[in-house]
């Protein structure tokens, strides 16, 4: 049941919520739409659910025009951010709602409705709660009722709007794994919207990264982390931080060092962005080696050490992250100036409109390692 979304555009007075959005969702796939608030992800969800109409573009399901169907007939299950359970109905009545409102020709028998409600409640692990009202449930339980209610109509597409947005952190993390398993056992094509990177990367088969109504990148969690397509993707997913680098010819100039970048067509670019991830700022093993960094503060967070650093001539601090073990091994006497080097740098060349013309990942060789460029440090274009 592939879903083809092509060139969707939606504009609210003066504000472009969706700008030329195209996306294909495969059968049974679990896709996350990730983006900051206002990036258009909820607009996309509402259009797919039939609660909103795009200004232009099309949505096809197996070649059939989905936009021509109204929300009632779309067979799309939607789980709302704040659950939107009917407060005056019990859990069982909530779940049965979608079956009870069918025209009488299509409505299952009362006994069949009862059986499928019981079945669904068992699947979401809420068997004993059938006769409670939503007000008597915890947030996580309500979330699961909302899921069961959406699944009762046997939707061909399941949409989840910030499924864990209103839950506290502990419950959220527990439900992630549960929902992942749940999807696997049901195999229903699902799309969920979230602003939480961890959530998207941990759960989804594929992540659609959105920003300002546009799709920045589509890829597996690994691809997006390893090869961010745009500076935004790098910043949002991999916590990439800007460095004051310049590209001249085939060379990157950074803090007085010059490194070669090959096959980088960024000469006529409007802007060149150099990003480094916190985990790619590593401590030098030899004192006095690498770039000088002034330690502004240090936080020990359960096995990792996070630090704010002023590197060389920069006046904006950047964040670095090391394991507790590396930190214990490498840091010198209680000195607040340490040596660091960059293990990987992402370089983007973009034009005036912010479109990326070229990108490269650079692994600068450094003195701490006996071999400057070995077979394991590949230079990618």
């Amino acid at each position, binding site marked *: 049941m592939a879903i083809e979304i092509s060139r969707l555009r939606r504009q609210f007075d003066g504000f472009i919520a969706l700008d030329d959005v195209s996306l294909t969702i495969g059968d049974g796939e679990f896709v996350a739409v990730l983006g900051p608030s206002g990036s258009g992800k909820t607009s996309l969800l509402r259009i797919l659910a*039939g609660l909103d109409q795009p200004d232009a573009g099309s949505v096809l399901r197996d070649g059939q025009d989905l936009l021509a169907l109204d929300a*009632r*007939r779309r067979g799309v299950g939607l789980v*709302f951010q704040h659950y939107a359970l009917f407060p005056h109905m019990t859990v069982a009545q909530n779940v049965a*709602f979608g079956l009870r409102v069918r025209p009488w020709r299509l409505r299952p028998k009362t006994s069949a409705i009862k059986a499928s409600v019981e079945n669904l409640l068992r699947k979401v692990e809420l068997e004993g709660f059938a006769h409670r009202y939503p*007000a008597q449930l915890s947030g996580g339980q309500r979330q699961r009722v909302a899921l069961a*209610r959406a699944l009762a109509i046997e939707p061909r597409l399941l949409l989840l709007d910030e499924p864990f947005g209103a839950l506290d952190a502990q419950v959220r993390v527990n439900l992630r794994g549960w929902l992942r398993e749940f999807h696997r056992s049901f195999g229903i094509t699902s799309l969920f919207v979230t602003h939480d990177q961890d959530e998207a990367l941990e759960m989804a088969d594929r992540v659609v990264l959105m920003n300002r109504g546009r799709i920045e990148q589509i890829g597996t969690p690994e691809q997006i982390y390893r090869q961010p397509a745009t500076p935004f993707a790098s910043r949002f997913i991999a916590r990439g931080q800007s460095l004051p680098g310049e590209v001249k010819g085939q060379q990157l100039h950074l803090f007085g060092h010059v490194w070669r970048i090959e096959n980088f067509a960024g000469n006529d670019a409007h802007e060149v962005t150099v990003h480094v991830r916190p985990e790619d700022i590593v401590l030098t093993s030899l004192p006095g080696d690498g770039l000088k960094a002034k330690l502004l503060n240090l936080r020990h967070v359960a096995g990792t050490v996070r630090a704010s650093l002023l590197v060389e001539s920069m006046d904006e601090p950047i964040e670095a992250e090391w394991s507790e073990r590396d930190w214990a091994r490498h840091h010198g006497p209680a000195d607040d100036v340490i040596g660091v080097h960059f293990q990987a740098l992402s370089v983007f060349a973009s034009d005036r409109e912010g479109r990326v013309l070229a990108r490269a990942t650079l692994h600068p060789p450094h003195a701490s390692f006996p071999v400057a460029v070995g077979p394991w440090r590949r230079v990618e274009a």
Partner: protein
Amino acid sequence: MARHVLPGFRLSTGYTLVVLGSCVLLPLAALLWTACELGPAGWWAQIGTRRVLAALKLSFGAALLAATIDALLGLLVAWVLVRYRFAFRRVCDALVDLPFALPTAVAGISLTALYAPNGWIGSRLAPLGIQVAYTRLGVLLAMVFVGLPFVVRTLQPVLESMESDLEEAAYTLGASSVQRFFRVVLPLLLPTLLTGYALALARAIGEYGSVIFIAGNRLFRTEIAPYLIVQKIDSQYDYRGAAALGAVMLGASLLLLVAMAWLNRWTRRWAVVR
């Protein structure tokens, strides 16, 4: 007693009880006391007459019917005012309050002037065989008029704060617009609607000024109970008789309002966490 965050619990409670007692309970107690002076036989002699029974029947019957009409009409008005944006919406919104603000006598006189057989609307209804002024229909009309704002004003804030999520959820689950209204919106509005209904009912039962002008106060036909009470005092100085009738109205109103409150609780049983 548990300590409260704000001080002055005793003072404010005492003050409330004094005000409530002197303004509400004391007059009611005096009313019952005066009525009791009659004794059971004297009481029945006052109440059991054909004239009084007819008036009570009209008062409560018309009030119940008027409150029902108000509930339906008020729901419609509140719905339109909250859900739609149209020219002069704010003016219409302000107009809803007019029956609150208008002296009831003015309302009664204007309704009479409109619906009298020679009035602007009355003269057009007369050929159809419909007479409003000086009939029970007129009583009903006046009661509907004064009760409407209660329903609209209680419903409005609830309708405004109602999440569109619920209707959208019902929509994606396959409910038609009729089903969405009757299965989702109406059950959620019902407690509030009942509150509005009870307020409109209470007002209609107690309404005097606007009704007596349009009712015409014809014996056995369009006399309402409050009119009889005034008559007893005005023409016969029969304070005990008036009190007896008043006590009956008080008792019946109390019963109705308690029933409404109970019904209200029942319709929102889902909100009570057990």
